[in-house]
């Protein structure tokens, strides 16, 4: 490689090149992955609180038999929105937020592959969430449950706008999720620092990669289903209408063909986060790295082959249910591999009991509980007693809180210091952990029992004398304890912003590249692009590795916003990529999409068409290249 050398990196020039523009323009036009990542996290946490408030209402209603705090319609809207919010507006976006923030810092890059698409994925997430929540303003929030089974959600039985908000809102959010997934896949294969071969990437990369590939192939099933639902409702089509050749089970198949991969999409990146944190608190590299990476990929693939286990009670032939039952049991094995990899890491390591680690221990325990209750429901005849009652509600909350929320809170305690430069409080952190751990178990363990006592799901109240009062009381108390933990976290977070101790570059003495830059990182991430030689660059000295990662000496890439494009397997640099400046097009495009969706929602067709035209024009504006004079391009002669 032809080289011109200099003694130090021009950090001032790099900062000016990569900084977001000042003022309102910068706020709206930034394409910086760190800003977008933080926005994702904050917005997702706001939705988490909204979903939590909805849950608080639900648990207060169910604390005892015949409580009528909410009437049936209100309760049905609240439980539906609780599911929609947590699953679509929190669980996936929060992981996108962490991945967005961390990936370039972990792989030694200056940004994601498509920074403007990144901004688009955030704005469409925000606007789709707002779109769905405006339904509350007119008292017509979705009320068909988060999986909205037809024919109840058809226009005969759901004549209001509730389900239109649902169908269109979900189509809107799939746009965000899909473009985000494309960004992650391309970044994974093209943007890793020189030397970061596939076997050296942090597990979060494998987790988000697997989830992103799954998104690309699974989300279209939801779009197709929601389009059909909207068409049935709005234009009198008959996809799900048994009387006219349709079938209600078509909805269930399409929905769960999306829905089951979705539940892996919302846990695999979190498993990746956990796999990257556990080594730091065990003071040794992850045991069985290859096993864990392969388990992640395997789970994502197998996740496409189990959807019928949500339909075991629908009267399908035994051959079909048997196959899916077997697949649903076997999918537990990759999870078991990962669990034992973590346990092995701790076993042969030296545990350091800081707050993130407490959440990670809780995560392992809750994962096992959720996993075994899942195996119980995978047994078809037993599932006929367990599905559609509180047992499966217990299962799904254990897996979601255990494998998504707990790693997320560990990640918040672990990486917020990198983002803000301030540590959170260990003392508060312990309280937050114990309140959340005890609260979660108090809330959800008894649900296994209320389900086994015959309590069905999605009931706005229940009669006295069925023996369900005591377990529900315990559950509700647990929910309040859990909520208290979350509130305490918020207090700690805001406190830490002003009085938290300074974090420094590497407060946890962790091994990966993001800890080699300042907290918070400079806008250009790395002044000098690292050349990677192992999975744990910052620990190489102490592990007596033969080759050391180059940090601080190497290529600078400072002629504008530049980063390396590298080969897929071994990460050899083969091109220099020119990254885009701040741009308003992502926000404009997202706003025009919103106009279109409102037009479709209210059936104001001219507005929908106008929105569509504006979307097309925005895309054209975005894609029209910024032209550079030939003599201003720094090209070699043969590049023409």
């Amino acid at each position, binding site marked *: 490689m032809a080289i*011109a050398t200099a003694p130090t*990196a021009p950090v001032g020039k790099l900062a000016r090149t990569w900084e977001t523009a000042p003022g309102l323009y910068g706020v709206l036009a930034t394409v910086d992955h760190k800003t977008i990542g933080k926005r994702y996290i904050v917005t997702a946490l706001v939705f988490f609180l909204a979903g939590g408030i909805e849950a608080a209402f639900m648990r207060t209603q169910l604390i005892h038999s015949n409580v009528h705090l909410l009437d049936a319609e209100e309760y049905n809207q609240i439980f539906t929105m609780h599911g929609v919010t947590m699953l679509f507006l929190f669980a996936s976006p929060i992981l996108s937020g962490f991945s967005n923030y961390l990936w370039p810092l972990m792989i030694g890059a200056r940004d994601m592959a498509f920074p403007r698409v990144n901004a688009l994925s955030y704005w469409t997430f925000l606007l789709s969430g707002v779109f769905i929540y405006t339904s509350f303003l007119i008292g017509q929030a979705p009320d068909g449950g988060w999986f909205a089974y037809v024919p109840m959600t058809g226009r005969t039985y759901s004549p209001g706008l509730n389900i239109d908000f649902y169908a269109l809102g979900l189509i809107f959010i799939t746009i965000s999720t899909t473009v985000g997934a494309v960004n992650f896949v391309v970044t994974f294969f093209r943007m890793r620092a020189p030397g970061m071969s596939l076997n050296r990437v942090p597990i979060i990369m494998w987790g988000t990669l697997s989830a992103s590939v799954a998104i690309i192939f699974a989300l279209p099933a939801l779009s*197709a289903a929601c389009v059909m639902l909207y068409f049935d409702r709005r234009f009198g089509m008959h996809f799900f209408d048994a009387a006219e050749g349709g079938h209600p089970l078509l909805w269930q198949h399409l929905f769960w063909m999306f829905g089951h991969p979705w539940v892996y999409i919302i846990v695999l990146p979190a498993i990746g986060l956990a796999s990257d944190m556990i080594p730091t608190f065990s003071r040794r590299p992850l045991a069985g790295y290859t096993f864990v990476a392969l388990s992640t990929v395997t789970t994502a693939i197998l996740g496409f082959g189990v959807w019928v286990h949500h339909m075991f009670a629908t009267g399908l032939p035994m051959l079909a249910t048997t196959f899916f039952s077997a697949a649903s049991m076997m999918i537990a094995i990759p999870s078991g591999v990962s669990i034992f990899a973590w346990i092995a890491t701790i076993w042969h390591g030296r545990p350091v009991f800081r707050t993130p680690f407490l959440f990670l221990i809780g995560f392992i325990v809750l994962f096992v509980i959720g996993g075994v209750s899942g195996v119980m429901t995978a047994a078809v005849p037993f599932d006929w007693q367990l599905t559609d009652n509180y047992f499966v509600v217990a299962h799904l909350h254990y897996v979601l809180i255990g494998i998504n929320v707990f790693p997320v809170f560990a990640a918040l305690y672990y990486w917020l210091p990198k983002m803000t430069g301030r540590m959170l409080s260990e003392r508060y952190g312990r309280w937050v952990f114990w309140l959340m751990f005890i609260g979660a178990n108090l809330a959800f363990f008894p649900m296994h029992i209320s389900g086994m006592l015959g309590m069905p799901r999605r009931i706005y109240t229940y009669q006295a004398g069925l023996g369900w009062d005591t377990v529900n009381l315990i559950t509700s108390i647990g929910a309040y304890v859990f909520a208290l933990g979350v509130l305490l976290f918020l207090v700690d977070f805001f406190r830490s912003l002003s009085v938290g101790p300074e974090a420094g570059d590497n407060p946890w003495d962790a091994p990966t590249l993001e800890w080699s830059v300042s907290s918070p990182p400079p806008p250009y991430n790395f002044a000098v692009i690292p050349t990677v030689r192992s999975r744990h660059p910052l620990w190489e000295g102490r592990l007596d590795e033969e080759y050391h990662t180059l940090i601080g000496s190497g*290529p600078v890439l400072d002629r504008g916003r530049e980063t390396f494009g590298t080969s897929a397997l071994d990460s050899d640099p083969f091109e220099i990529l020119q990254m885009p400046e701040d741009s308003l097009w992502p926000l404009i495009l997202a706003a025009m999409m919103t106009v279109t969706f409102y037009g479709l929602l209210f059936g104001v067709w001219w507005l929908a068409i106008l929105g569509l035209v504006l979307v097309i024009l925005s895309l054209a504006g975005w894609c029209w290249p910024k032209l550079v004079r030939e003599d201003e391009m720094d090209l070699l002669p043969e590049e023409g």
Partner: protein
Amino acid sequence: MAMVARPYDLPISPQDRRAPGRMGMMLLIATEASFFVYLLFSYFYLASMARGAWPPDGNNPALRLSLPNTIILIVSSGTMWWAEAGIRKGQQARLRIGLLVTLILGMLFLAIQGLEYSNQSFTPATDAYGSLFFTITGFHGAHVAAGLLMNIFVQARAWAGHFTATRHLALSNVALYWHFVDVVWIVVFLSLYITPRLG
């Protein structure tokens, strides 16, 4: 003292098949293809659950317009390929003409499909078959329309002389998308128009 370097002999944003933009288009195509897979799954699922004939009343969709239309679309893929091969050799005229002919053929496809729609004895609201027929072909038509809009966009750039023999990624991506749309049509055509005739 750290050594920092400015590598000058790596190409800058090359536009070959390894470019990030190329991979992005392929992934977009993968997700759109999946969408059609799920639509066709719905078609075959409802066909398998149908109690009577499928299509109902036994009327197979006619080949009179759809078969020539299929050929038109395949030819348009050929002209798009021809256009891209041209710019790879630096032939601007061939690129522009090829794109224009492709555009015209694509518009012809949509017009003939519109004619077929107006002649149909059923509507999307007649029954599930009608809903599927119009939704599947309709979404395909929407993808054709999107491809034509992309065609107009790169044609504008082509006429403005943006593309060279080594720098024409936008054109390659549009061509790839166009071929994808063609492949989707072949699968849709086989599924909706041919499989009912296979007894």
